[in-house]
């Protein structure tokens, strides 16, 4: 017997109930409802669009498999978003990225970036910037900045030390700042 969640609208409840019973049309409706949003999430955690689509597919498979476990605590979108992030983490762990990380001099900053520079960039460009990071840096940066996790939690999730997590974050920020500076200069020219 499907649960009734007070936080959900009737249509959401209907779709969820349909998905629990394995009804394909309900699953399709759910997918159509959240696919764009979740594709956006996956883009942040992948190096390109193809990888993002793989994560999206894995994530939705998990959503349909475990939808009966959704207890209605918090928003449904937040629950799906969390599953997508977990799918990305799973992919990251399984791929066991061993690419060498280019050391970056984090102390060297030509000048402070102004708000106006940031304002010039749209979300798509920022995603592209994050995608240029190495998988390790990108993962730490996303989990810390976008998901708000602590270094201890990140270290536990990625199987690294807290120090490595902090170091990766600092390096990721430095890379991104440099990239932003380049973009600023390009924009001024």
């Amino acid at each position, binding site marked *: 017997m499907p649960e009734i969640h007070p936080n959900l609208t009737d249509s959401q409840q209907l779709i969820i*109930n349909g998905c629990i*019973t394995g009804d394909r049309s309900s699953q399709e409706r759910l997918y159509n409802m959240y696919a764009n949003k979740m*594709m956006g*999430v996956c883009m942040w955690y992948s190096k390109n669009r193809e990888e993002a689509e793989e994560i999206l597919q894995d994530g*939705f*498979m998990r959503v349909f498999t475990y939808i009966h476990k959704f207890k209605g605590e918090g928003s449904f979108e937040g629950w799906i978003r969390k599953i997508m992030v977990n799918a990305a983490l799973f992919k990251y762990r399984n791929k066991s990225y061993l690419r060498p990380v280019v050391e970056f001099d984090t102390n060297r900053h030509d000048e402070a*970036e102004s708000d106006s520079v940031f304002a010039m960039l749209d*979300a798509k460009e920022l995603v592209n910037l994050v995608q240029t990071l190495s998988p390790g840096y990108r993962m730490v940066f996303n989990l810390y*900045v976008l998901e708000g996790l602590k270094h201890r939690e990140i270290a536990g999730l990625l199987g690294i030390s807290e120090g490595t997590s902090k170091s990766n974050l600092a390096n990721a*920020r430095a890379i991104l700042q440099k990239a932003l500076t380049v973009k600023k200069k390009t924009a001024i020219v």
Partner: protein
Amino acid sequence: MGKDVHNMDDLFNSAYREFDEVPSADVWKKLNAGLDKQEAASYKKRSAGWKRIAILLLLLLSGLVIYESGLFNKKPSNNDKNLAIKKSGTSPTLTTKGDSGNPKNNPAAGKNEDNRQDKKTVNPEKDDINPAPEQRVNTLVTPKISVSAAEKAKRAIAKSRLPITNQKNKEAGKSIQADDMARSNNIIAENEISAKTKNRLATVDKIAKPDINAPYHMGEKSVLPSLSDWLITEKTSGRKKAIKTDQFKPYWSGTVIVSYEHADYRLDSDLPVKTDIKQREVHEPSVSTGVLLMRQFKKQWGVQTGLIFTSTAIAITPQKLYAFQDPNGNIAYKYVTSSGYTYIKPGFGPPPAFGDSMTATEAKHTLQSISIPLVIKYTAGKNKFSFTPGAGIEFNFLTAAKLETEIENSSGKEVVFINKLSGTRSFYWSATADAELRYHANKKLSLNLRPVFRYALSPVTNKNEVETFPYSFGLGLGITYKFR
């Protein structure tokens, strides 16, 4: 720097919250295929449970058949026991009964038979040998027993235990002698008791000379017939039938069958859809094939089981489908068949609304099942031909309820393939009867012509608009091989 970092984090954070991207259409296609695979795996997992139950049932039935047939129950009857003693040509060993043969109670008897020859010679004067019928003997005796000992034992029996007077004994002895004379040529040609026995004492004399070379064994026990048994046997065996040399031995036989069947069904419903379904659906010839295993436990009686796969095809004429709300609240076109229903949501055109209609062209509906029959068979006939009618029940496991059709409206058309209809039961019972006519090509092989009738005792549908009870008449051909 700190301010920059915070600005940067906020910037990325807000971009993360608002960023959307449209995935390619391939993602849903792959996801759909993945869900199909998952569903198939889940279905397989569920059907595995039924398979286990079927196998367990088959094993239990086999066990029951084997038990009933007495394959491992070789305990001979008292007659056989006495017969064995008579056939030995010498006197039997002294009697034991009950647990005397139990090694725990009788250490001597519990020892290996091979060592029997080394057992001590019984000294009747020292050893407490009581040849009375109920006496339990704890020592084995050898054929080298002395005459005096036999005499003493004989006297002891005569004096103490046998409640027969001398006169009666003489009469009994005469009677035994007469009986023995009459049947000596048939049964106990070598038995010393027969012709030379003059009276009961003579019989006792034979008993007092036990033959340890041929003790009667029942399992691990050395069972020695009692004197009273002996006498009773002597008196009555003449009236009993002579040894049957052509006794029936239970055997197994396996049959491979292929059957062509005409299937139909009985629909049970008060709704008008019952008539519609009956008019729309036309059964096509169905086919059954399988392997049957039969245990012939009596000359004329046997039990048959096995596995039969049946595929039934039903052609459905074109019809108009109407949009309904499915149990999940979605609007889709409902397609109802005799054995289940499905909701079809076309991949073209706008989503259907209540009252919308769509045409489904001719459809093919296929039902597949695996059956485990349990049939009692009676065999009549001799020589080359035999007639083996049977009746029993079948456990049927529905493995597939497929539907293939094409739907179309003004927006377009598409082929729909449904692998598993809703409203179908996974299991149903049926009664079955057949009448095999066998031609025995040789002792092992026979060819069968097998008319068969099946009738479902429980419906194949569950929560469908009609309750469907399939039945079929079939004519099968088979080859039977006897394992004996």
